[in-house]
């Protein structure tokens, strides 16, 4: 089905490799160069480490990240559910700096010049690059939920869809909620970050309420027609573990929010909750969405799947949730990590004036907790297809767990430890 023959190589110029970087020369026969990475999440941290590791230090890497530490979205639902705490999902960038020699700068990128090969930093002025990697994650489209389009509203009706202060704040809202209260979570239309994540969160909140506030309720307001991931396994968990506690409503898009009364406005209906958790629709992070890179649906960056390079802006690679996904590809941390490695390999080839790998492979796994011990997974493998020029899911490979099980509860934590180490240790 899949050919290993190398034909129709992309011919790539050696110009980038020959460019003098701000760090100076190449080492030995390895091409040097300076790569700037914007965003230190699953995609950005991975590409930074792998560029340093695979070039054996020959390529200089600067990572710009606005937060002082990495906080993981995967596993953060366990913090919201009261099973783990923030320390369990917080990791420092020290190893990237000290062990791998990545220059990590805490700052914000406010603009870029794709012709001059420079970026603009909020605090640090201009910086030049030979190749630029944007791994900015997503920005929320608060204009789609007008009542949420101001800072005060956003501090009350939370998304907690980026792990950090909102994770803690949502946990506090749940702790403060009375027994008999209603927690409602709204899911935007696909594609959104982490397809199984909202259903996992509903389970873990229900798991907490069942033990501590058993008269309470969880309501899922899903803008989509149906459960977006692992449907049979999630619905079975809702029936077996949380009967009468979790209620699922499809085609229930939240169009607006009345913050003062904690009310979600649906098309024909209103829904008042004690804790209202609205995940607004999102798009590629603004540095990727507003720099002239070609977008799909005006929201996601169009990229070349052999290199993760923008299809209209040479020299700029985009990773993770910000890209327009290939068929059946989820926006996940695992996938962003794989994007990072695909891009690292291609960038090193490009800097050295070599042909890039014409047949890349990426794979995904998402583990979801349905209570503090039991987990379900979904997995897929995606191979580059010359006809469609996309990475396509391999038929007959991948799949989901047979049933929720405790063994995979252990594997899921092992996955977290290993992927965190793969990007940051």
């Amino acid at each position, binding site marked *: 089905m899949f050919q290993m023959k190398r034909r129709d190589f992309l011919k790539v110029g050696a110009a980038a490799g020959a460019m003098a970087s701000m760090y100076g020369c190449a080492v030995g026969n390895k091409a040097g160069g300076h790569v700037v990475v914007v965003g230190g999440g699953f995609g950005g941290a991975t590409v930074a480490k792998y560029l340093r590791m695979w070039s054996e230090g020959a390529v200089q890497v600067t990572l710009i990240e606005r937060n002082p530490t990495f906080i993981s979205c995967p596993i953060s639902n366990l913090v919201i559910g009261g099973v783990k705490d923030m320390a369990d999902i917080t990791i420092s960038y020290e190893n990237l700096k000290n062990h791998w020699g990545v220059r990590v700068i805490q700052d914000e990128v406010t603009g870029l010049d794709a012709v001059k090969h420079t970026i603009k930093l909020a605090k640090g002025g201009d910086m030049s690059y030979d190749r630029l990697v944007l791994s900015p994650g997503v920005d929320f489209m608060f204009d789609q939920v007008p009542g949420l389009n101001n800072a005060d509203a956003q501090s009350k009706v939370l998304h907690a869809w980026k792990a950090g202060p909102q994770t803690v704040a949502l946990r506090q809202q749940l702790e403060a909620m009375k027994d008999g209260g209603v927690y409602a979570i709204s899911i935007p239309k696909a594609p959104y970050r982490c397809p199984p994540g909202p259903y996992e969160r509903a389970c873990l909140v229900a798991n907490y309420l069942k033990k501590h506030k058993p008269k309470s309720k969880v309501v899922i307001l899903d803008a989509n027609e149906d459960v977006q991931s692992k449907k049979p396994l999630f619905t079975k968990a809702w029936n077996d573990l949380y009967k009468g506690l979790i209620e699922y409503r499809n085609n229930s898009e939240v169009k607006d929010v009345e913050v003062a009364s904690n009310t979600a406005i649906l098309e024909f209906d209103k829904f008042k909750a004690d804790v209202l958790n609205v995940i607004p629709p999102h798009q590629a992070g603004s540095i990727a969405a507003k720099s002239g890179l070609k977008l799909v649906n005006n929201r996601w960056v169009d990229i070349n799947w052999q290199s993760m390079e923008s299809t209209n802006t040479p020299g700029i690679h985009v990773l993770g949730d910000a890209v327009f996904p290939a068929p059946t590809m989820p926006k996940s941390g695992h996938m962003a990590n*794989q994007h990072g*490695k695909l891009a690292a390999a291609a960038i090193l080839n490009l800097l050295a004036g070599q042909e890039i790998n014409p047949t890349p492979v990426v794979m995904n796994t998402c583990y979801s907790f349905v209570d503090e011990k039991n987990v379900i997974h979904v997995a897929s*493998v995606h191979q580059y297809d010359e006809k469609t020029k996309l990475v396509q899911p391999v038929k007959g490979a991948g799949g989901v767990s047979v049933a929720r099980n405790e063994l995979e509860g252990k594997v899921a934590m092992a996955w977290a430890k290993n992927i965190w180490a793969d990007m940051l240790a």
Partner: protein
Amino acid sequence: MKVFTSTFVAALLLAAGTAHAADPNLGRNLAATCANCHGTNGKAVKGSGIDSLAGESKEKLLQKLADFRSGDKPASIMHQIAKGYTNEQLGLIAEYFAAQK
């Protein structure tokens, strides 16, 4: 089942033996797709609960992958992952991990 499995391993080994990829980094790139769970270069976080693959012999790795594919080796997820790669690719991956110290 056993016969199928051993022919299958033979095919895997044969494919691996002849797969001298024009791109010297192909094995490295493919093996990196396993690192999310098995650790960078196949060195898993100690005590994490997932096995390291670094330094395992190529034959052993290919035998295990063949057994995952056939169902002879029970698995929570590896049967689904192993089926996503060609024989040549698994050969290159096993070669890469076997060479890691």
